[in-house]
């Protein structure tokens, strides 16, 4: 499955674009994490990395579909 990933903050610098398409092995958020980690090892150096699906923080177990809005949430620093 190919998913589109929105990027923000430092994750945009690491992935190199506002929206990046990735071929996913597996179907869960956890699988996406593994693919990201392999392709962009700099992500592992962040304080944290959450994945949002349809604008909600998603657990690793969550199963993805091709139409989901997926976004990387590196450590937030608002306020």
């Amino acid at each position, binding site marked *: 499955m190919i998913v589109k990933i*929105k990027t*923000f*903050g*430092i994750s945009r*610098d690491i992935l190199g674009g506002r929206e990046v398409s990735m071929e996913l092995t597996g179907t869960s958020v956890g699988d996406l994490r593994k693919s990201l980690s392999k392709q962009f090892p700099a992500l592992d*150096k*962040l*304080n944290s990395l959450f994945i*949002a699906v349809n*604008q*909600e*923080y998603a657990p690793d177990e969550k199963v993805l579909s091709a139409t989901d809005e997926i*976004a990387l*949430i*590196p*450590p*937030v*620093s*608002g*306020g």
Partner: protein
Amino acid sequence: MIEITEQLIEVQKVIEAASLKEAGAINTFIGTVRNHTSGKRVIRLEYEAYEPMAIAEIQKIIDRATLQWPLTGWAISHRIGTMLPGEIAVVVAVSTPHRKDSFAACQFIIDSLKQTVPIWKKEFFEDGDQWVSAHP
């Protein structure tokens, strides 16, 4: 009111949006851009937000606050885009019948906002820049 804006935040407007005649107490927190961080002079900042999710997460914080304190009104405005030291980045205002609750609820909201709301800031120094809190 939940607002994410590229314009200067008008504090008075946020306070008024949170106020109610019956309130009694209004607490307001204003966060401004500091002009230095770890001893380095900050020239400017860039804030960005994942806007629809940021608004949804702020709404969740308000919902949790409403369960804990008798809020009679609330308003949150967060600025994004380019900011200079001294400028206002965020304003949180809440009103409650009694003052203690207004302090507790306002502090809960700003503390939670800093933990869960997808907004990021990048600090620019004379000799470089960094995404705040990204790395250990």
